[in-house]
């Protein structure tokens, strides 16, 4: 069974696995890669106990395609990987988008590029999560920064995937995956689980005809619906249709499905932002030293706040713009890459405030002092 309500001491990887099982995940296909392997190992042990299927596939490409097949087979399905495997999965993330298949992909980021530092933290896949596959599309990406969030946000990831029939990426990082912390598992009645919409009847059913919320009900396989689903541009019947007007309708809807519901999807945690004049924007493990930096700054009379992104995509542009036009004079974007979310923040700020990048290339997390020093320098306008 899923974990009984109570307090547990889990690693980030294990918390994601248990969160997935709690959310109803009953299929995992993956390939070993540091630092995500423990997640797969936990699923290998736990899934058969709860009636779920685990299979280790021959590579990451097989892994992602297999979970798409399993999702069409009616199961909530997940895979877990890191940077190099995530790169291999990009083409078929596009297939999942085009076929509107709910799946959850966990990317436990490590220092890159290429083989990089397999056992060290990175946050270099942020842009890849949004733009990695070819063509124009939208996905959802969540970013936990505590082991509790690993548990909670994984449940949310499955709910969002089912609700919007879209791949949802859980962007973790290596430090969090191997960190052991206290996790409170709530009782089942405190948890909301969302299932995919099913068609009301087989009469005149068109598999890709959306409801008002732009999401079509997902027909089950093997029940006489005689579905056809393809990665080619298709019309409401699911049949390939090479026509610019059909493309216009389809691609626009696939993107609007997420864009128009951004307000429901976006999840941002703020700390000490009410009167903040300076704000740190960050996500994942960097949020931990960032909170400490905010506390130290406040002790020294600096009005610093923290904006922690729990959803990275869609990005909370309206929220950032609001802060930029209502008192925040400078944003410091702290990320373990050489500027990825930084550009998006700059765009949202639109010149209304200063935006500074505090990068780390990979392998180490910012210390509270490093962040504080940068804040102090920014405040002094020395930069």
């Amino acid at each position: 069974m899923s974990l009984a309500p109570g307090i547990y001491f889990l690693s980030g990887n294990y918390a994601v696995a248990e969160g997935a099982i709690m959310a109803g995940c009953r299929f995992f296909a993956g390939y070993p890669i540091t630092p995500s392997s423990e997640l797969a190992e936990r699923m290998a042990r736990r899934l058969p106990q709860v009636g779920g299927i685990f299979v280790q596939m021959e590579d990451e490409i097989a892994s992602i395609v297999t979970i798409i097949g399993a999702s069409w087979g009616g199961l909530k399905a997940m895979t877990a990987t890191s940077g190099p495997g995530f790169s291999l999965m990009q083409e078929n993330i596009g297939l999942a988008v085009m076929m509107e298949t709910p799946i959850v992909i966990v990317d436990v980021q490590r220092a890159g590029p290429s083989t990089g530092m397999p056992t060290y933290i990175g946050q270099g896949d942020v842009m890849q999560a949004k733009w990695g596959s070819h063509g124009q599309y939208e996905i959802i990406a969540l970013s936990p920064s505590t082991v509790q969030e690993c548990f909670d946000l994984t449940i949310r990831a499955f709910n969002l995937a089912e609700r919007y029939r879209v791949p949802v990426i859980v962007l973790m990082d290596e430090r969090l995956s191997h960190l052991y912390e206290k996790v409170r598992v709530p009782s089942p009645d405190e948890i909301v689980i969302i299932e995919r919409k099913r068609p009301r009847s087989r009469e005149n059913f068109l598999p890709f005809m959306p409801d008002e919320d732009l999401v079509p009900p997902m027909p089950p396989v093997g029940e006489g619906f005689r579905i056809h689903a393809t990665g080619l541009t298709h019309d409401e019947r699911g049949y390939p249709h090479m026509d610019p007007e059909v493309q216009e309708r389809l691609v626009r809807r696939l993107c609007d499905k997420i864009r128009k519901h951004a307000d429901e999807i976006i999840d941002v945690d703020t700390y000490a932002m009410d009167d903040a004049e300076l704000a740190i924007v960050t996500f994942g493990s960097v949020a931990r030293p960032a909170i400490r930096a905010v506390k130290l700054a406040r002790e020294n009379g600096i009005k610093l706040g923290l904006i922690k992104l729990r959803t990275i995509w869609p990005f909370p542009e309206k929220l950032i713009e609001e802060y930029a036009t209502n008192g925040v004079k400078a944003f410091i974007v702290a990320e373990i890459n050489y500027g990825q979310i930084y550009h998006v923040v700059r765009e949202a700020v639109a010149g209304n405030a200063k935006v500074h990048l505090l990068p780390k290339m990979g392998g180490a997390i910012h210390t509270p002092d490093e962040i504080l020093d940068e804040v102090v320098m920014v405040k002094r306008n020395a930069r």
Partner: protein
Amino acid sequence: MPVKYITEHIWDKYLRKDRLPHIWCPGCGIGSILSAFLMAVDRAGIDLDKLVVVSGIGCTGRVAGYILADSFHTTHGRPIPFAVGLKLARPDLHVVVFSGDGDLVTIGGNHFIHAARRNNDILVILVNNFNYGMTGGQVGATTPENAYTTTTPYGNLEQSFNLPYLAAAAGAVYVARWTSLHVRRLAWSIEEAFHKKGFRFIEVLSQCPTTFGRRNKMPEGIDMLRWFKENCEIRHFEDPKNVAIVLGKKIIVGKFVDIEEPKPTFEEKVWDLIYRLSGGSHGKGK
């Protein structure tokens, strides 16, 4: 004269009529192979509601779009892992992978050998037209040595795969090779395969006059079919290592592997484990 001119075919009930006419060239063998498949489905008594056809990219991959069953047209090289995931989630369904040589054993080669090794319970029908037809006739892993393709304009320098040998070595429980001329035997083979479990593989040689035949002195579909007629020899249970296709030599067709003793499928083993570990609460009857 006992002839009637009509507008509907007896097998139209298995086809998405609103998508006909199909895209295949005049003289292409895929339509014949599809006919054989539908006859096999008919004779085996397969419930069309429980049949799923998974294909990839290429001319053969288009079959998924014409069969009136749940069908999935996936990315290039990947119908096998899709089928694996689907069958594991729904072991009650008949899952057929129907795709081409480029898709299944060139780009998709890795998935092919692993599915055979695992003994995934899927029926793989591979149409081998010796090239990448959809994209204009480039060389593939099954193009015979010395054949001309658009990317081997001086003749193919590579040896081609001996697919029955590959499949048998990887662990397939049923391996057969037919052609788009041997349609009746192909239909019987598919029907026979429907009644077996495990990784079943049927290679079907087919004519591609437009991009392969034309460059290899067989410009019409009928020319390649005549080539099959002159050069094919039926040798059931021939050792798969002897059935490589070499230009100028005989082509061996027939049923090469048909393992009788029950070899548990991967799905059976997975569901068995689930049944045991979940204390009997899941997996029984799967």
